[in-house]
């Protein structure tokens, strides 16, 4: 069947069988390997993408079921060479270690901050509770989210 998807603002038409998950479309069909999977059972969050600006697990999303929605993967955040404030903050605040959880963590963070650029600690914790990080213990991730939010609120020239 013909499936029309909008991924990272680009319309794509794929010839699919219909039983492909969005994760498989991203990784296997489009070679967008930034989105990972680590459990295949909704627990780890490494497959998180944004659909219509909401953090969504791509491993349990049927590609054919999200036609007409705005799909954003980690590859869609940077504007050319310019990193998204959240990406920039994750580097600057030392939030990245092994990195495997980071694409999903960033997607959840962006989804949060786009709606609420000044979240409370509790709001940050709740927004990220679907993303497991085994390395970082979370404090630096929280810090990066807070600081990125400030930049997103106050404009691109805000020094983080």
């Amino acid at each position: 069947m013909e499936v029309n998807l909008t991924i990272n603002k680009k319309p794509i038409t794929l010839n699919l069988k219909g039983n492909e998950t969005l994760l498989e479309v991203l990784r296997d069909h489009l070679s967008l390997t930034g989105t990972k999977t680590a459990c295949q059972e909704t627990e780890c969050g490494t497959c998180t993408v944004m659909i219509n600006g909401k953090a969504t697990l791509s491993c349990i999303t049927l590609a054919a079921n999200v036609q007409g929605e705005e799909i954003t993967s980690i590859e869609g955040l940077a504007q050319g060479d310019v990193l998204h404030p959240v990406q920039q903050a994750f580097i600057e605040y030392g939030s990245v270690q092994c990195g495997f959880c980071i694409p999903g963590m960033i997607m959840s963070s962006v989804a949060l901050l786009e709606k609420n650029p000044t979240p409370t600690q509790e709001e940050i914790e709740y927004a990220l509770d679907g993303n497991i990080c085994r390395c970082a213990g979370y404090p630096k991730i929280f810090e990066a989210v807070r600081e990125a939010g400030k930049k997103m609120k106050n404009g691109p020239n805000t020094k983080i």
Partner: protein
Amino acid sequence: MALTPKSKFVDQYVDPVGKSVPRIEGRGIVTGQLKYVFDVQMANMLVGKMLRSPHPHARIISIDTSKAEALPGVKAIVTAQDTHQIKFGSNEYFFPHTVDQMALESLKVRYIGDELAAVAAVDEETADEALRLIDVKYEILPGVFEIEEAIKPGAPQIHESLNNIAVILPVNFGNPERLMKEADSVRESRFWCPVAHPSPMEPHVCVGQWETFTNKITLWSSSQAPFKCREALAKTLKMDLNDIRVIKMAVGGGFGGKLEMLPMDFAACLLSKKAGGLPVKICLTREEEFTTTRRKHGMIYKVKTGVKKDGTLLAITGEVLADGGAYCSYGPTVLAAAMMRIFMVYKIQHFRMTGYRVYTNNPISGAMRGFGGVQSGFAIESHMDLVAKDIGMDPIEFRLKNITEPNTVTVNKMILTTNGLKECIEKAVIASGWNQKRGKQKHLKRGIGIGIAADVMGSKMYKSHESAGAIVKVEEDGSVYLFTGAADTGQGSNTALSQIAAQALGVSFSRIKCKAGDTEITPFDTGSFASRVTFISGNAALLGGKDAKLQILEIVAKDNNLNIDDLDIRAEKVIFRKDNRVLMSFDKALELCYSFKYGKQIIGRGSYNPKTTPIDFRSGEGNVSGSYGFEAQIAEVEVDTDTGVVKVLELWDAHDIGKAINPQSVEGQIEGSLAMGIGYTFYEDLRFKNGRVLNANFAGYRVPRSIGLPKMNSLLVETDELEGPFGAKGMGEAALLPTAAAIANAVEDAIGVRIMELPITPDKIIKALKEQAM
């Protein structure tokens, strides 16, 4: 002609050591472009899967692969018949008899998940179907699953060892029985330290490719120890080391689970051979990750101490029984570490402890982060609090009285040079407000507790040598390649080692490009474990940088008719040592090296072998490490006595790390370790029944998430280790060691309940409170 040198490299990180330089891989990580073996896609790549035993203990009567071979899309199947049937193990050097695992079994299976065969097919469905079509006839044998059952005479024998004991480690010094009689107070405790699992986010995954005409192998593996993997492959495949190339790409976490060759690495290579050289990728499912890789040793930890009224620790005796699972892996050294850490922390002359590494038909125990120190940390530090309470002494005072000091040699001949333990305790006490809180918050059901620990930071426990090598290649355009065998699994070694190399060479951080963990290109390195990388690999990188510097200075000195000893390179400048006067810029010096006249390639080499003495595992003697790190950790908790839920309010970890090469990375490691420590204390508990893992998924095996973690304070104590690169010792796992005890001690301070068996779960608290009320 040499290229015109540019000054683009001069940046804010001109003296990078001690600065929080952002991770080299940062940009790749946050854009999703950094490639892990997990992401590898190659043309005509086959999907490989392992055939695993469904029984915990059985004899293999027959394996019939004919139906599977006939399935369209199946390109190769391998069984033990295709192998040399050579066993492998991880403790071969010191304990040769513990080399007990076959990559593919043909005689017997010893745990649910034990590998018998592997298939390679065009896609996952076909591979799964092929596995179902392999017909194996088993004779089921009775299994044994509990440590104390396994060592009973008459228990089912798993290997050819007496009473299922793989290794007995007796550690004896002095005359503890006599000293125990002189004690004013004697206490005996028994603790249960449960099974945790490394659970890195990237599962074990590898791609094997066999060049069929030249018989060379390339294995891309998510590995913490590519050289160890190569060594094991060479052994089991009966090949030369040089014909095997193991490449480590970005690794999504290891935590001790990716330290050795696993049957899947072996199988991927062999399948590729049988499939005519097509690459074969094997990626474990999360369930396989939980059940068929490596887990923590569950330990029954018995300890008995005798102390004087004034708090002097006189004698320690005890017994440690470790559930090793079906094969030995790193078991013996983990067990040794679980006992011998005590010597790094407490002054003791009279000691008798026997460790038993026991086989069971459970999944395999290996070297999970903490390496026996998590178990001993919980047991010993909980016990010491009980001991202090017995004699009415404050736990801080008791520890200060008995801790090791700098520049001492322990009874088992460990040489402790710098030792910041006292400073760590003092720092943690002040930062946490201990004196205002201890024993004073019971009405709020709050408590505060301490645990202390030490760790080896540059140890040698596996091979004849564990030296690390580094090559520092300075290119004409001014960029610098650092080749290191060290395996960055996310802890930031690429960045830290680059900082060290840059500092040693005297240049800006941004010049350095790091190539790591490729057995064909980078020098040997044992791998990322035992928190050794900063110290051992760091020293190699330092020596490599220094060597390159000397090569440059040799040319400069010659050209300017100067004495090389008068010169140095620092912060991008060639200077006179005496008065720091600048002679020329680094780029200018390089131009000279690559000039028509000299044409000198600058290739610095470094090799570092930590100064240790061999461990005698019969006596427990030996200076196992070139450097030791120390810490004191304090936890403040609040208990909800209705629900039994213990909330950790705050953690303070004061850590003697020698020197922080990259403070942000050190904090990151501490925070990650603290989180893992909290996990171990409260909910990381891999449970088995009759050899089957009951909670082999993230729903059942909980790991720390964003909600409910305490505020974490990393207090770095820099004691400037002379032997360490720029004074550094390292930081990897140590913060994980005393967390459970600090929390258990805090719980006792809060509500008077003492938990002796982890994890601390609400039902245990409620039960204990009910018993307390009676």
